[in-house]
């Protein structure tokens, strides 16, 4: 990426990536300590989350899945309320009922988070239909994994969106893993984008570890969706640098592949680009990183001070 393509907001992108990394590092440490709820870490996928979410407007809606921390934090979620949710505390975004896997924050436009793989794909069309029918401006960004693309609902969702002309930005984070199974064991090709194209959905493949490339592609795709109301798909090539669940389970890891992708760590890439272009200096980045960690420490203190929900919440909010 040439330095001229880096806008003044580049440092804001880095700042959000640093916050997500600090958050995930804290969860990894807490999980390694034992007696902590299971979490799916987005460690290594920060550029995908930040690059796409930064291209969205306030009226846009986001649907996400079990690996959602990056999407939420990129959208401005309070890490204290997120940690409280993960820890099952009442001040969490979902009052402790969701845990880490289904965090929705309607106030942020992060709606209907599902940890049924493919759940977000099945709901996105309806959210987009409502946006369109009710004359709302926002489009719908739907994050899902390469594994989810193997569910039949992927095909059903894209076909309906293409046929009806629904304003959805499908974002496939192809991180090469589907829980304990490598993507290559589940499909003959390497990419999801051609599947979308075969259904009439314009699709583009992007280096998902280059936050600037992701951001540029997402801005362009959103612009086209806003112009013609039709769905688009971005396939972000990235890598799950941790096991499926924390505490890390390296059982299934491919060591050579992992080493290769560690070299391509999205944070490292972002920082190198900014330093090389003279957009930032090492001391400034160090200050940003320390500030991110301090925010997470404060967030943890908030979460730990939050009580568990009272027993009468067992039956709360079952019906409207």
């Amino acid at each position: 990426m040439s330095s001229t393509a880096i806008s003044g907001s580049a440092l804001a992108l880095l700042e959000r990536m640093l916050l997500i990394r600090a958050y995930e590092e804290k969860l990894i440490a807490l999980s390694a300590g034992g007696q902590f709820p299971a979490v799916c870490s987005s460690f290594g996928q920060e550029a995908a989350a930040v690059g796409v979410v930064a291209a969205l407007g306030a009226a846009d809606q986001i649907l996400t899945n079990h690996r959602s921390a990056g999407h939420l934090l990129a959208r401005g979620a309070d890490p204290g309320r997120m940690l409280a949710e993960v820890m099952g505390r009442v001040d969490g975004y979902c009052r402790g009922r969701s845990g880490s896997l289904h965090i929705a924050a309607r106030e942020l436009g992060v709606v209907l988070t599902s940890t049924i793989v493919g759940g977000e794909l099945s709901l996105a069309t309806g959210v987009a239909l409502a946006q369109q029918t009710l004359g709302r401006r926002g489009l719908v960004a739907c994050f899902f994994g390469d594994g989810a693309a193997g569910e039949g609902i992927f095909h059903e969702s894209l076909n309906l969106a293409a046929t009806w002309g629904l304003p959805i930005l499908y974002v496939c984070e192809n991180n090469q893993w589907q829980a304990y199974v490598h993507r290559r064991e589940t499909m003959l090709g390497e990419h999801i984008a051609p599947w979308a194209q075969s259904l009439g959905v314009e699709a583009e493949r992007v280096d998902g570890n280059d936050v600037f490339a992701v951001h540029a592609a997402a801005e362009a795709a959103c612009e086209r969706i806003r112009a013609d109301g039709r769905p688009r798909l971005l396939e972000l090539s990235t890598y799950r640098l941790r096991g499926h669940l924390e505490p890390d389970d390296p059982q299934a890891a491919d060591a050579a592949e992992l080493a290769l992708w560690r070299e391509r760590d999205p944070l490292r890439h972002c920082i190198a680009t900014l330093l090389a272009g003279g957009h930032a200096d090492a001391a400034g980045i160090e200050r940003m990183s320390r500030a991110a960690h301090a925010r997470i420490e404060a967030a943890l203190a908030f979460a730990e001070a939050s009580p568990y929900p009272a027993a009468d919440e067992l039956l709360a909010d079952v019906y409207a």
Partner: protein
Amino acid sequence: MTQNASINPSSLHHAVMSLSDALDTAIAEEMRRDPRVLMFGEGVATKRCALLDEFGAARVRNTPLAEAIIAGTAVGAAASGLRPIADLLFAPFLCYATDALVNSAGKLRFMSGGQFEFPLVTLAMSGGGWGVGAQHNHNLEAWFVHAPGLKVVMPSTPADARGLLKAAIRDDNPVLFFVDIGLLYQPGEVALDADIVPLGRARVVRAGTDVSLVAYGKSVGACLEAAAQLAAAGIEAEVIDLRTLKPLDTETVLASVRRSGRLIVVHEASQSCGVGAEVAARVAEHAWSALRAPIVRLCGPDAPVAASFPLEQAFAPQPAAIAAAAHRLCAREPAVAEVNV
């Protein structure tokens, strides 16, 4: 999964192992016994590498992340000469698989005039213990009890898990085999030379004549704890583990209630149209005159389960509540009247 069973020196044929290892033992034994048995699912070949090593990649397969086709493939293969075991991981993921299981496996034998049979087993976990929320933890076993043509099993001990799974694999019908997450790593003694545990037979876990506690899954343990508390107060509870939810062993339940005159049905699954409702109805139909008090159901609430640890723990019926209900029933002697428990 590794089979880290420790061999009991007093008997070469007994081992203490977890329910998880007992399931792996049963699968391996049945795959050795019958070359038509194969197993597939998301991560099966990765997580159960001992099976992969022994039986090879043709019989132990990873699948794409796609429950509808996992189940559909199992149903089609079962009708065509194989005996598949499909691992659906967590029970809520069965929703994507339900079409093939309910509309095809459960119906096409009957609808084809008996031309096909569907010898397949699906494995799925449910219940509290992992704090991952209602899209992983949902005791939906009664849905499949309601569907015709399916059998439904949910064991409470490693020995039963081994024996029932072996029976399920040998059965010529589709069996939904539910595993309680909370029991997965609890050790228990398993007789390695024991035969199958036949489907459709409940087990009297503890004998007693004052009140019948009927349960399955982790609620059996809660009933046993309650029974110990009750014994200290002079009340002898009989504890029955249903083990198979369909076909339901009505006779064992009726015989117990005819002795005790009091019935409490306990399960973690929500109450409405749960297995407890069926047990209560059968007792009311067939042992009404033996009842000395109204039937009581203690079940999970009609709500999704929260991820938050204390709420998840509170969801399943607790021993204290079971004991309290038994005390109330026994104190009502001998009237039969309304109680609100």
